[in-house]
């Protein structure tokens, strides 16, 4: 137990903690909020750079692990938080809530997620989850003069606290059975035991708590309200970052610790996935608010992403990881357009005739909508293709058929946005004038959605290499 070696392994998290505090304190001196936002981006970039140079290994009595898997997820968090900061500046200014804490809270939530992705122990996992969730509760309610934003924060907090309790309850049952919280030791001690009722109860508690984090049906009730009320950049962030973090822990806990009862958790996840795909896609059809529509679509995408974990193979995990990576770009891209539209872009009807008044932004929105549907040559197609491939290879062809049919259903509501933009006459004049950071965010997301659609090779290899699980 070499202490300095342990410290070396958690260097990224240490740096991020320090830099987040610096950003928090900087607000006292620096009055210009854009500078603080810029500091936030620097903080993430520095952390990302350090993360790249950390050797794989276990630290702190095997509580913390650094491997390709955690690194891949951390990069999803870093990218989504940078894109979120780029989108936030003008939005917060317009909403009159531009405070520096926003950026440090965002950094703290990324810190929590990093611990989640790296945790090899249920206690660390719980702490990471709480750090992430507490930061986001505040961020969701950041528009403090807006009743809907308050509602979002309160709702998220109450239900989040409930899910934390479930998580703790599940952890305590696991501890009861095995006497440890370390994932690997749990796995070793469970091999001998059969699937006892207590273990099943623990599994159900854990699955419910995780399902809450990824907004899987029937634990999705919070997400449309929270997504609608929260500041749009935070909605974009929540639909990608915390969701990916949820998948990171699902993958690790179920595959590593509960590998001996794979049949049982696969059944549970299958039920969740089927319900999530159906309910998410079907309810999205009737939405009139675009943020709510994207919330239900985000629920549905959780259902797709679960397919890879259900497959359970390295290939399956890799496909879920790649899918979440791709989803980060296409979903934040779609939310970027919504953010740029500002208050004029919350309702679906606001997009009528956008193809005429703002051809550029309409064209970009069109790309994101087709990517979310999964139509080639966009990244969304590559992601879905990989998921379907892995799930069929694992023998769940029925699930794949359901998933493709649900993709066809989803075409209906994504296409409705395209239809409104291009096939209706503009009902009012919209003036869209993004600032430089927003334009940058949209350029990055569009570029990657198209690049990964046409030439996905390197990204697939990246996910494959990262999959060298733990």
């Amino acid at each position: 137990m070499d202490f300095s070696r342990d410290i070396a392994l958690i260097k990224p998290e240490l740096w991020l903690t320090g830099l987040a505090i610096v950003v928090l304190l900087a607000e006292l001196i620096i009055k210009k909020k854009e500078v603080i936002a810029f500091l936030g981006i620097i903080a993430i970039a520095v952390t990302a750079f350090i993360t790249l140079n950390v050797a794989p290994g276990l630290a702190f009595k095997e509580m913390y692990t650094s491997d390709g898997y955690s690194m891949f997820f951390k990069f999803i968090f870093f990218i989504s938080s940078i894109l979120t900061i780029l989108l936030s500046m003008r939005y917060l200014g317009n909403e009159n809530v531009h405070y520096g804490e926003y950026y440090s809270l965002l950094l703290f939530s990324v810190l929590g997620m990093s611990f989640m992705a790296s945790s090899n122990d249920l206690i660390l996992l719980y702490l990471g989850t709480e750090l992430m969730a507490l930061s986001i509760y505040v961020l969701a309610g950041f528009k403090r003069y807006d009743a809907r934003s308050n509602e979002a924060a309160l709702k998220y907090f109450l239900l989040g606290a409930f899910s934390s309790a479930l998580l703790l309850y599940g952890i305590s049952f696991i501890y009861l059975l095995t006497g440890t919280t370390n994932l690997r030791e749990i796995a070793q001690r469970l091999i001998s035991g059969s699937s006892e009722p207590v273990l099943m109860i623990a599994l159900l508690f854990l699955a419910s708590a995780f399902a809450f984090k990824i907004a899987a049906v029937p634990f999705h009730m919070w997400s449309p309200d929270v997504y609608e009320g929260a500041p749009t950049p935070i909605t974009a962030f929540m639909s990608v970052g915390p969701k990916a973090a949820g998948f990171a822990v699902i993958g690790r806990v179920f595959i590593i610790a509960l590998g001996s009862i794979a049949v049982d958790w696969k059944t549970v996840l299958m039920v969740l996935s089927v319900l999530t795909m159906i309910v998410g896609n079907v309810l999205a059809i009737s939405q009139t608010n675009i943020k709510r529509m994207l919330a239900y679509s985000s629920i549905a995408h959780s259902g797709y992403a679960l397919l890879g974990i259900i497959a359970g193979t390295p290939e399956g995990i890799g496909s879920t990881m790649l899918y979440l990576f791709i989803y980060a770009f296409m979903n934040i891209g779609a939310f970027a357009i919504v953010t740029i539209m500002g208050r004029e872009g919350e309702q679906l009807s606001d997009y009528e005739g956008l193809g005429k008044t703002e051809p550029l932004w309409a064209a970009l929105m069109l790309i994101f909508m087709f990517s979310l549907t999964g139509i080639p040559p966009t990244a969304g197609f590559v992601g879905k293709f990989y998921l379907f491939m892995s799930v069929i290879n694992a023998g769940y062809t029925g699930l794949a058929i359901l998933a493709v049919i649900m993709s066809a259903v989803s075409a209906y509501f994504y296409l409705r946005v395209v239809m409104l933009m291009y096939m209706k006459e503009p009902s009012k004049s919209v003036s869209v004038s993004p600032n430089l950071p927003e334009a940058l965010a949209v350029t990055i997301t569009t570029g990657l959605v198209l690049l990964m659609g046409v030439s996905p090779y390197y990204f697939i290899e990246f996910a494959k290499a990262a999959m060298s699980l733990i």
Partner: protein
Amino acid sequence: MGYPVLSTVIFLPVIGALLLLLMGRRQELAIKWCSLIFTVLTFIASLPLFLNFDKARSDMQFVEVFEWIPAWNIKYYLGVDGISVLFVLLSALLGPLCVLISWHSIKDKVKEFYIALLLIEAAMIGVFSSLDFFLFYVFWEAMLIPMYLIIGVWGGPRRIYSAIKFFLYTLAGSVLMLVGIIVLYFNGGHTFDILSLMSQKFPYKLQLILFWAFFAAFAVKVPMWPVHTWLPDAHTEAPTAGSVILAGILIKMGAYGFLRFSLPLFPDATRAMVPVMLTLSVIAIIYGGVICLVQSDLKRLIAYSSVSHMGFVTLGIFALNQQGLEGGILQMINHGIVTGALFLLVGVIYDRSHSREISHYGGVATVLPVYAGFFMVFTLASIGLPGLNGFIGEFLIILGGFKASKLAGALAATGIIIGAAYMLWLYQRVFFQEVNPNIKGYKDMDLREIITLAPLVVLVVWIGVYPNTFLGFMHESVKQLVIKLQ
């Protein structure tokens, strides 16, 4: 051949579309000329396929292979044989005609329209020349985006409903094929290479399941009865160029899919399913024809006639003999030319009158004699008058059909009679009788419109008089296919 013909033909329109993207939206004339030049260039670039194609070979020619996504063993793999080469040529030919016919009729969002048109052309040619399933699927699906926009943005009054219906029908069918493709990948030794998959033999049960998975995609595209209902809406509401592409190429992709994939990949399942397929084809022939008799809308009538004609095509294909298959392929080309031309002609008169109602017209032959002449040629070709192209195709199909099933052949033959009835009656109502006051003072076809249609007249007569130019392309490939099916 010094240059990669197929890639050039696929990517020239894409380059054209990118150029248009850079142009200002006010420079409409420049945009139109640019698209015309690129579609003509594409057609010229495709000519080596016609001139240098070795008709004595049955294997793939003009092959291009590159690694694309090695992780999944996916290649950028192009090539044409006797079955696909004519479709590539037809797609390349219809490109410039679609640009020409839209010259004055598209006034809104001109830039976007031509970008969509060029992208659709690239995707269509890609579909017909891909030899890798992943690549094929990318082109197959990518085409939906511009087609959806063309119908929905520049279409008629019920365009939005029709566009959504078109998209959902085809997507629902395609995704099932996607599952089929992936299943094929894992059962065929982890490859998407169509040729290497064709050289394998799959167990009967698997063949049967996959046959139906692919059927879902192809039957919707053809469209076969009873999943044809998107077609009348889409054809009717689409702008002229959209209808021409739909009728000329897009619905051929379904029948092409049967020929290229279902037959050689699942021969046992195909043979077992022949009775079902023949029944569906005959229903389409007769049902489509009878529906045509009661249409009051010009475009809708021609759209339903497509259902009937495509019934002939699938009948020929599933007769599974040399005559039937060759007739089926030729009839696809014929239908592309003739129905494409009929939609172009409807577009010509629609530009003047903005009405598709048959009762709006009458005595058109008196006011627009040149127009009436053109329409007559294509009407007769559509009916199957000997000496014009429709006759050759239908004759071969019925010959093949009789060999496969006497009943199917006989019923299909009655379809020809119904076809003559609705087309001639249509001609009578529109072109003869008293001159309807609505159409007084209309100008006859101008030079641009004549140039658009003249190449198609030449082809109609050429195929009708000397079909061997075109049948020669497919003899060897079809022979191989028939051997495989025995």
